[in-house]
């Protein structure tokens, strides 16, 4: 990996902007290409990864439940920021690992049970702390 200084703040802001402007189809497709359907579905609390694939394949389909749509936005933001700084493999590893800033919960478990904005925010804050060091 080349030793090029990464502007973490810029990557974070760009990922945020994309998370509020990109359509659900693009977010789902990006997650499938990077962390894959298993991690993507688990983090969104989908028992079947084919749902994520359907969103990625159609402009007319998107999450109907507000909670799931909010999780998709947050997960896309997180993965895009980590991929922008490191790689898809690092993003996958981060999501499935115990995290000290989440009381040793795994980010994907906190995301999948997130029913309030505060829970999503906790994972976003932990992600930003991971990137900023």
């Amino acid at each position: 990996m080349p030793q090029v200084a990464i502007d973490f703040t810029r990557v974070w802001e760009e990922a945020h902007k994309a998370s509020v402007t990109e359509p659900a189809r693009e977010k789902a497709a990006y997650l499938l290409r990077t962390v894959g359907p298993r991690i993507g579905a688990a983090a969104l609390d989908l028992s079947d990864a084919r749902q994520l694939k359907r969103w990625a394949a159609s402009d007319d389909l998107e999450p109907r439940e507000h909670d799931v749509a909010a999780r998709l936005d947050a997960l896309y933001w997180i993965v895009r920021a980590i991929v922008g700084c490191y790689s898809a493999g690092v993003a996958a590893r981060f999501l499935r690992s115990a995290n000290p800033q989440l009381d040793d919960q795994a980010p994907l478990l906190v995301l999948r049970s997130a029913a309030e904005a505060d829970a999503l925010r906790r994972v976003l804050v932990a992600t930003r702390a991971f990137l900023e060091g």
Partner: protein
Amino acid sequence: MVPEEVVAAARAVYPDAGTLRLHPAPEQLPRPEPDRPGLNRFDDPEGRVAVRYTATRLVACLLETMSSFRPHPAAEAALDEVSGVEEGDVEWQADDVDALAEWLEAQRVGRVRVLDPGFFLEVESPTLLTQLDKHPRVRDAVSSLDAAAHLDVALLRLGGIRLGRPISQAVGVAVR
């Protein structure tokens, strides 16, 4: 003139040789963001200052930064339950070490030296603890834990866990 004891305290924490920071861009110092503070910030709940974590030994840097890569059995169980994953799909294994190698390869070691120790605080000094204990915000934080308690080193060190974090955060605000 900086008092000798302040210089000695500063040197104890930040030796002349400097301390180490592990990060892909160790020289970067993010700007404070008062409008978007970190909820879990140990000592700066309002995002008023730029925070930089360092350690005197590289192994401590690695232990701290790599603590986000520890296995989580419940997460693995949740991943195993997902259906609809087909051959050819992107899959990452729990024991994949390539991701750790990529992360490590991106890291650089920076050395942090303190050039002016004039503003160091020895936060565990008994005199300072007594003064801080009178600050309204610290009083509120300590009283909410134990109405009869006064700020001491033990309470201050509770900031390492969520229970005591309001105290360390209140102290972080009060010392400014």
